[in-house]
């Protein structure tokens, strides 16, 4: 009951409302940034996409309902680089999530690092849509359904991309192709 009431008040509020706008920003900006970064491996572009998407959202805040705001933001971010030449060589840098306080043997660490390098290379040579899907899922913990919403495709298509991503990562790492 309480929840549905809350939902109702949210719907009544406009994206133009500062609180709603800020909430949408807090929930979505990081994902947009990552999404564009995974695509192009370019932080500047990712930052620009966040700016562009949110300024556009603000300009059209009367036309976009809060529920549609996320989809709108992703569409704007996506369209922004539709015409960008995709041939640019992608070189993603991944910050290390784990602090290195391991008691593993030096050989093991070396092996680890070697594997990591291989993975990095494999990721960079993945098709853009597979890499984006894989990383949104692995790093951002986005569910397949959420990624489907961001990309504007079916969940099934995302599963396919995920499968192919894993498959080609493994093939690259194991030197099969």
């Amino acid at each position, binding site marked *: 009951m309480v929840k549905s009431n809350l939902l109702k008040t949210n719907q009544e509020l406009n994206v133009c409302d500062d609180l709603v706008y*800020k909430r949408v*920003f*807090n929930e979505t*900006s*990081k994902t947009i*940034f*990552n999404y564009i*970064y*995974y695509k192009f491996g370019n*932080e500047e572009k*990712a*930052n620009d996409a*966040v*700016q562009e998407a*949110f*300024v556009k959202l*603000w*300009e059209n805040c009367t036309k976009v309902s809060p529920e549609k705001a996320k989809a709108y933001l992703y569409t704007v971010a996506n369209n922004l680089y539709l015409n960008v030449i995709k041939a640019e060589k992608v070189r993603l*840098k*991944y*910050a*290390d*999530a*784990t602090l290195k306080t391991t008691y593993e043997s030096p050989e093991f660490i070396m092996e*680890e690092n070697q*594997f*990591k390098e291989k*993975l990095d290379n494999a990721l960079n040579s993945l098709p853009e849509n597979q890499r984006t899907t*894989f*990383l949104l*899922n*692995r*790093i*951002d913990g986005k569910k*397949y359904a959420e990624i489907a919403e961001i990309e504007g495709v079916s969940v*099934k298509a*995302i*599963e*396919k991309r*995920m*499968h192919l991503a*894993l*498959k080609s*990562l*493994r093939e690259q*790492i*194991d030197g099969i192709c």
Partner: protein
Amino acid sequence: MRDNYLAKWLNDELTEAELAEFKKSEAFETYQKIKESAAQLDSPKFDIDKAWKAINQNKRVEETKVFILSPFKKFLRVAAVVAILLTGSFFYLSTLDESFVTAYAENKFISLPDTSEVILNAESELAFNEKKWNTNRNVNLEGEAYFKVAKGKKFTVETSEGLVTVLGTQFNVENRKDYFKVTCYEGLVSITINGEETKLPAGNSLLKINGNSTLSKAIVHGKPSWLSKESSFKSIPLHYVLDELQRQYNIEVSTKNINTSQLYTGSFNHENLDLALKSISVPLQIKFNLDGNKVLFYAEETP
């Protein structure tokens, strides 16, 4: 193995049997390593506060832009309205009547579009529509005017008292308060008062005072006397004569102990006030006193 089993494996959706089978495959080890290694990946740092500030700045820039543009837009809006009003009023005004007004002691010569001539006596107003003139020779008159109408279609003078219709002639219309007089100098004039038509041949005049109309022979010199700067009257109540005197000289006339409804026959000149006052006072055996532009007529004291 199912479609997209790798995706399902990452999502922990595989059944135990499927998982067991997958684990047996030689590729599993690498997949497991990829999964573990990918768990340590992280995206570059995203400065959310900085992005928020930048957006708010961009928002403000957008707003200022609108602000800079708006005065010009406002100006355009105003200009558009003014332009519409101007063109609108131009077309509206052009359909309005042309009108001529004379003040006290003023005459005006007006040439109508068909070369008909009108001479407007003092304190009178004439209006006509120039646009419709070709189909409708129609003028509105208040006061007195002499018409010399060019031959052509029906020519109508509308007054508050009635219609005067002619085809082409010379006539005079005088329409003052409770006083309506039409004199025909040439041709035939038709007068319609309250739907009743009267034909007035040349050399006749129709006079209506206080609702009573009388037909009479006019003293015709070919033109009304006021055109030769003289007002003449024949058995007209004195107050109409005094009204005319006021109009012609732009003076204020008052009376004392005088019966203003007594009839006056005679004329007065428009150029010499002293002479005009005498022309009125002497036949009636009254006196006058002129002070600036005020004239008082009073009864001669009978000792």
